[in-house]
């Protein structure tokens, strides 16, 4: 055990935890005022729900003894043998329990990311069922494939902090969710204007802050790789912000604050798989590209006519995909990508992109269809008009 690494990862785990309430604010500001609490709740509840599922069964499915490269065994069920020393810990410098909780914070935020796709119309009860099952049948296997000794990691796919595990998986699930649940009532006819953009900007700031724990912490040690990941994360977010504003200014005429927040998040998403594998200058290119590509991503929903309420597909799906491929282009720290003489890496990254999208989309789609047929996914039309705050939680966000 290493005391410096342990203290660093403890702090990183706390930073990643803070991203989920940050995401809640980021999303809630973009929702309408009658859905502010419903939207916050869809993220915040994951801190309760997923933390428990992860400790009991998710962790062992992700990091238990490998079964055929597909899934982890049940040897860590209910944290059996996951203790305060390094015994059996996938990171031999960290207490096993610390590794478990750091990974748990990633598991918490991932289903919270998906909620942006069906914000303002999903039944709370069905959300809980969907998220619980999704962690077990989508997130845990993905996590095992990439980080837990499964086939994707063994094939050599690079995913430093969760481009596939967190962002592409949530983006693919989000696309499935938009298609299964359908558009919000009045979509395309009424204006769905964000009710509190300062809240969204604050949320974006918290996400940026927490992302240092997400990416630098993924070095799993207080070392140079963590420092590199911290710097690449920051520069990519900065470049993403500028990239989005540039293309927005050229396309729409004016740079917007929502664009600045979205661009920063796009840059953060894009650098996530690459953070520990690229140089700071490559990170600027990846982030800048992320800002521009994700701006294009949010225009897709108008073109293909699906209602991804808060642009999970456009930002996390596309940003994660770009980041995974960019890792195959720009990797030069501890791995080589195409630009450093290893075209094979780009091919492996592409394979991981296709398999991640395919698996996560199909399984999420099936889950949603089954829940829709049994419990119903969507609140009634009247409840949707009243808003989720009162309809689902008997509360109102504002007393004005």
């Amino acid at each position, binding site marked *: 055990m290493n005391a410096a690494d342990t203290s660093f990862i403890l702090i990183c785990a706390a930073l990643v935890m803070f991203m989920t309430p940050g995401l809640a604010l980021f999303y809630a500001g*973009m929702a309408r005022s009658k859905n502010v609490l419903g939207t916050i709740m869809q993220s915040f509840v994951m801190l309760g729900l997923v933390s428990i599922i992860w400790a009991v069964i998710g962790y062992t499915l992700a990091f238990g003894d490998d079964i055929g490269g597909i899934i982890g065994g049940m040897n860590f069920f209910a944290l059996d043998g996951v203790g305060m020393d390094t015994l059996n810990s996938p990171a031999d410098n960290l207490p096993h329990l610390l590794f478990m909780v750091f990974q748990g914070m990633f598991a918490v935020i991932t289903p919270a990311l998906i909620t942006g796709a069906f914000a303002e119309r999903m039944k709370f009860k069905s959300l809980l069922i969907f998220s619980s099952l999704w962690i077990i049948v989508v997130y845990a296997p993905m996590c095992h494939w990439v980080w837990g000794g499964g086939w994707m990691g063994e094939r050599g796919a690079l995913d430093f902090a969760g481009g596939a595990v967190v962002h592409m998986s949530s983006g693919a699930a989000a696309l499935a969710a938009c298609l299964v649940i359908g558009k919000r009532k009045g979509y395309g006819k009424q*204006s769905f*204007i*964000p009710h509190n953009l300062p809240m969204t900007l604050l949320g974006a700031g918290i996400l940026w802050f927490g992302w240092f724990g997400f990416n630098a912490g993924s070095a799993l040690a207080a070392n140079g790789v963590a420092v590199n990941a911290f710097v690449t994360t920051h520069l990519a977010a900065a470049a993403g912000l500028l990239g989005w504003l540039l293309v927005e200014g050229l*396309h*729409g005429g004016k740079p*917007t604050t929502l664009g600045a927040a979205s661009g920063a998040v796009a840059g953060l998403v894009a650098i996530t798989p690459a953070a520990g594998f690229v140089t700071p200058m490559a990170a600027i290119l990846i982030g800048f590209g992320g800002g521009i590509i994700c701006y294009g991503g*949010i225009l897709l929903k*108008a073109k293909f006519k699906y209602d991804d309420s808060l642009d999970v597909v456009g930002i996390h799906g596309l940003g994660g995909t770009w980041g995974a491929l960019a890792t195959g282009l720009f990797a030069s720290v501890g791995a080589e990508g195409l630009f450093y003489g290893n075209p094979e890496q780009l091919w492996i990254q592409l394979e991981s992109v296709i398999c991640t999208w395919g698996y996560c989309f199909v399984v999420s789609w099936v889950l949603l269809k089954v829940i829709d047929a049994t419990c119903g996914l969507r609140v009634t039309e009247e409840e949707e008009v009243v808003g989720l705050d009162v309809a689902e939680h008997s509360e109102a966000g504002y007393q004005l």
Partner: protein
Amino acid sequence: MKKIEVIVRPFKIDDVKEAIADLGLKGMTVTEVKGFGRQGGHKEVYRGAEYQVDFIAKTKIEIVVEAERVPEVLEAVRNSALTGKVGDGKIFVTPVEEVVRIRTGETGTEAI
């Protein structure tokens, strides 16, 4: 007695208030309102999606005066609220049947 209802640009409210006070009038009621006329609305853009916002913020002033004072009030209000651009607002004049001062019970012009 007449009620004069004035819809003006919000930034003009202080000018209008001073112009009315200069005439020696003692009170007015001010409300923040939304609406549109020939000025139309404005465009807002969120993540590349354009929304037409029909209703524009305006300020409504209501004052009740003796009928013979109406012309001078209209002139003062119009001069003080004028920018010359579309969207300067409108003034409506309507008859008032009765006014009661709640504290004293006075009625008619005494209560204005």
